[in-house]
């Protein structure tokens, strides 16, 4: 009886699987692991168009403002040429760094709102019942959502920033050429390649990996809260801080949070603040990778994510 059952169980399975094998080049194991992940990430981008619209809109704003500012560029450039070389550097780099900073801030704002809605929205609009009717595990779904602030947003922000900075450079060059000034000072004082490299490192290491527990916490809250996810994201942290202050008159928790937000003792100085950063990149990377702050953070992130996966498994529509 038992063997009969397993056979009748296995037969249609194997015949179906072999059909898939013929039509797909990838082996089923790889297929089942990566394809749902790939499509789930695409799905997130379809649903949350702000992920790419927001940085593009900010980039457009930056370029618009910069275009207006180029009216005064030739005059300011002449004044700068007369000043100390360090001031020249600062003057030339400043708008490029400001653009990077604005886009970074956009990334963080988009990431926070995205994470808080990621596992809440699908329960609110009941679409979780549809997603769960497909052969995609809760783990894959949560990982695909976590990959947005961790991987997609830093890379996207990097690409938008680099393109924006290059457009700014070309715009300034055109204006300076038009007014008969040489491009030498501008191009020698603007290490765009080094800045880009530092930016990529900063985005992935700091805003991606080091901030991971923050995104993990927000995803967990969005999986748990029935409403007012935004409030629930902040209140428990505040409560812990208050209790600690009253009970022990200390503020280690608040200090810990602050250190996490500011990048901790391992914080990589923003590229512009240090000209010797170029040589230090590898050293800093090494220091960053062995810092306990990073690994504790990643462990906490993994725990938050595991809890979010478990919650999604149990929860239905709100």
């Amino acid at each position, binding site marked *: *009886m038992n063997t*009969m*059952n397993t056979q*009748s*169980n296995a037969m*249609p399975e194997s015949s*179906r699987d072999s059909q*898939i094998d013929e039509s797909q080049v990838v082996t*089923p194991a790889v*297929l*089942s692991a990566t*394809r*749902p992940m*790939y*499509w*789930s990430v*695409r*799905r997130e981008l*379809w*649903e949350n168009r702000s992920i790419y619209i927001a940085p593009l809109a900010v980039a457009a704003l930056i370029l618009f403002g910069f275009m207006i500012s180029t009216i005064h560029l030739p005059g300011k450039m002449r004044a700068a040429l007369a000043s100390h070389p360090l001031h020249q550097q600062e003057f030339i780099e400043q708008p490029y760094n400001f653009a990077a900073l604005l886009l970074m801030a956009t990334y963080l704002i988009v990431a926070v709102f995205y994470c808080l809605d990621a596992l809440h929205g*699908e329960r609110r*609009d*009941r*679409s979780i*019942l*549809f997603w*769960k*009717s*497909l*052969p*995609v*595990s*809760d783990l*894959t779904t949560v990982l695909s959502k976590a990959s947005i602030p961790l991987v997609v947003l830093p890379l996207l922000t990097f690409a938008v920033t680099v393109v924006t900075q290059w457009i700014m450079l070309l715009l300034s060059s055109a204006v300076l050429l038009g007014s008969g000034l040489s491009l030498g000072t501008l191009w020698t004082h603007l290490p765009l390649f080094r800045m880009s490299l530092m930016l990529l490192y900063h985005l992935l290491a700091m805003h991606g990996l080091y901030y991971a527990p923050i995104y993990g916490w927000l995803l967990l809250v969005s999986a748990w809260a029935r409403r007012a996810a935004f409030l629930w994201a902040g209140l428990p942290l505040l409560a812990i801080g208050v209790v600690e202050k009253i009970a022990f008159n200390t503020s280690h928790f608040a200090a810990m949070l602050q250190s996490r937000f500011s990048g901790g003792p391992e914080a990589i100085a923003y590229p512009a603040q240090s000209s010797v950063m170029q040589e230090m990149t590898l050293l800093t990377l090494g220091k960053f990778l062995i810092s306990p702050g990073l690994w504790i953070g990643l462990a906490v992130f993994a725990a938050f994510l595991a809890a979010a996966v478990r919650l999604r*498994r*149990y929860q*239905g529509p709100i």
Partner: protein
Amino acid sequence: MTFQPMACIEARGLHKTFGTIIALDGVNLRVEEGRILGLIGPNGAGKTTALNAILGLTPYQGELRVLGRDPWMERDLLMRDVSFIADVAVLPRWIMVSQLLDYVAGVHPRFDRAKAEGFLAKTTIRLTSRVRELSKGMVTQLHLAVVMAIDARLLVLDEPTLGLDILYRKQFYDSLLNDYFDRNRTIVVATHQVEEVQHVLTDLMFIDRGRIVFDRSMEEVESRYLEVMVRPEQVAAARALKPMHERQVIGGSVLLFDGADRQRLTALGEVRTPSIADLFVAVMGNHASVTQGAAR
């Protein structure tokens, strides 16, 4: 042990509580492959909870196997062979029809995109529309087109036609029977709209207060249960045959019998097979009085 056809769904002592409310109170059921089961019950009877347990959406106590798998532990694997339509409003409103097809084709190894597009071509739904732009009926058509293009072995429908007009409702079950159902598939449908599934079902189950109170194939139903319309002067004679239920209509009474002799009933009036709705009322009425009696 006898050889039985493979069970698509097998549950023993399925139990589920929400706080103090008992949603499932020891449900035993077995659904063979190739059947269309109607799960009928009043609001709050445990229909949706039972279906959620079968679909791996909710944890439970007791034994449950769906296509040989434990749904709670293996939902994602199970969903390769199971499709379900929860109710009309679960397709994400932001998604574009073409994106929906792309996504399902991307994650579901048994989805046939061409087939889904074929079904959609028979409707007025365009691939560039977003779900939020579609009417309720069209969203159901879309969901059905996606589900019918999946080569699944079990399809679970929970109030699939809720809020649809008569045309869409009729069309829904027609498409299911003509374009989807075959002897290798199993369909479980929970609904209040019993009259429209009457001729679709092969099996019928009533659920009340977390228990299965009625479980028969439609052939059994048709051979066992008879309804007679009796004029007032013959009601006493009819009552002597112990009907399970009696209701008043204009010009007489309708009495419902379980396993009565058709010949004797024909002498009393016009004999016919009761509708599922009438059978439901009769079974539920008896069940309610029995449990009330037990409570007293």
